[in-house]
């Protein structure tokens, strides 16, 4: 049974420059449904319209054509703007440009304060949100003294304090070092699996897409591919043509299968995603041929 839809985009088109209807729209006829509890990854090269799509999903931008529904609220209806933004939280690329206070806990409180939540309840939510992202001990610190990964976790806590249904991360890991990236990936995986928060992760790190329930590939404002990570990454050549790649392990197996001297003797499966899977495959291969 399919879960209920949290965000429904129907024939969604958006252009920044409405004076030039001839120019290619930034988002071009996208129909996409985000379902409750899922972990959706959006892949696409720079300028493919990912950020525009994200901003359409919580009413920061309004559709030129088509509709966006959050639950059953239309983003074009001004009276739903605040409930929509509360339900669909957003974390951006640069942590420095989304934190509003010099003190971590005050920043986390900003969202609920805007929503008019009573003080005692805000206090509770802030403590809980900081706990969830593992930043409780930094509650009184200044954000500019934290690492990139920690800043982004504070930004995530700021969204969590609004009690959202869905969290959109627009390349939130792009400016982080590998460690920061891992911190964020662990945090959002927990949020998704343990707290049941729907995650839309926009990224161009292919490795981050492996954990997804579903992957969507965007190209020139359109959704060109959709499927499980395994399905998506089994089309290595297609992904490369879209200006993207595949996880390194997938690429390695793919290259091996194209090596004439090897592919004659062994059959290489497509869609191997992780080191563990690759290791298992090679062990099996060795056992079969030499053991």
């Amino acid at each position, binding site marked *: 049974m399919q879960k209920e839809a949290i965000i429904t985009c129907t024939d969604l088109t958006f252009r920044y420059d409405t004076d030039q209807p001839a120019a290619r729209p930034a988002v071009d006829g996208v129909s996409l449904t985000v379902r409750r509890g899922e972990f959706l990854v959006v892949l696409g090269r720079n300028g493919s319209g990912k950020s525009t799509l994200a901003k359409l999903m919580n009413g920061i931008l309004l559709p030129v054509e088509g509709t966006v529904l959050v639950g059953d609220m239309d983003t074009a209806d001004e009276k739903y703007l605040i409930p929509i*933004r509360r339900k669909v939280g957003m974390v951006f690329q640069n942590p420095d440009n989304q*934190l509003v206070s010099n003190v971590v806990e005050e920043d986390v409180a900003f969202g609920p304060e805007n929503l008019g939540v009573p003080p005692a309840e805000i206090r509770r939510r802030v403590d809980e949100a900081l706990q969830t992202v593992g930043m409780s001990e930094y509650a009184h610190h200044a954000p500019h003294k934290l690492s990139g990964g920690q800043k982004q976790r504070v930004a995530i806590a700021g*969204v969590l304090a609004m009690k959202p249904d869905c969290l959109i991360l627009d390349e939130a890991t792009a400016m982080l070092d590998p460690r920061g990236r891992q911190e964020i990936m662990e945090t959002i995986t927990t949020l998704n699996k343990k707290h049941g928060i729907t995650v839309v992760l926009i990224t161009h790190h292919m490795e981050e897409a492996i954990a997804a329930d579903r992957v969507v590939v965007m190209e020139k404002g359109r959704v060109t591919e959709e499927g499980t990570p395994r399905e998506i990454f089994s089309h290595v050549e297609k992904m490369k043509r879209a200006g993207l790649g595949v996880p390194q392990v997938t690429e390695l197996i793919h290259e091996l299968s194209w090596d004439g001297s090897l592919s004659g003797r062994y059959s290489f499966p497509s869609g191997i995603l992780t080191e563990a899977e690759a290791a298992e495959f090679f062990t099996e291969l060795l056992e079969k041929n030499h053991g």
Partner: protein
Amino acid sequence: MLKDITLGQYFPGSSPLHRLDPRLKLVLMIAFVVLIFFAKTLLSFAYLVVLMAGLTALSGIRVKAILKGLKPVIFIAVFTAVINLFWTTGEVPLVSFWRINIYPEGIWRAVYLIIRIMALVTGTSLLLTYTTTPMDMTDALEALLSPLKKIRVPVHEFAMMMTLALRFVPTLIEETEKIINAQKARGADFESGNLLRRAKALIPILVPLFVSSFSRASELATAMECRCYTGGEGRTRMKQLRLTGKDWVIFLILLSLFAAIVLINFIPFPWGTVL
């Protein structure tokens, strides 16, 4: 060098100064700034120095950090002091050479000015920025100015602008440093040449800083909208400001200590000039 700018920096802590209600702190700061200009005699300036030391001790902030915060104003202080040294006339010159006479009055005046500027910076920082979180400061400002809302002054917006400006001081300093290093790596020279040349060398720093500030501002605005910010209307606060008896006690003690500056002027003292 840029790292020394501590403007708008908050030092976390739980001293009596940290815990004092920000509205009272704001009032204290205004009183302090006004009263500083009433110091006239050597004794009252000496008292100012003691007062600053006392405030520092009360705040629990390390002396080193406070001295660091004074660095950027040293130039201004020394500059005004030197001008006063040469321009003040008195009765008997202490030294005279060529057409310059230096009078004891000038020396006192220079010393007074340095103390006054330093006290101004230290006092305002200690009372406000160092010990008050920007959000508290905003709340205090908003509370004190709220009568102006009746005549349609955008008090909340003004207060929010101030918070955000303070929030971005460290970020912009960091960025400036990055740009300077990038330009230096390409052979830019900021340390030699005359004043005009040095000022010109700043252009390649200021232009990218200016441009990036605009994109920062736009991103920040979007992020704030995403967090349901729609202005001051209907907004609650996690930390409610509440005045307690303890707040009033500390406030009155500090206020009397500040007011003593004026009284000390009346104590006769043989040394020093009267301003």
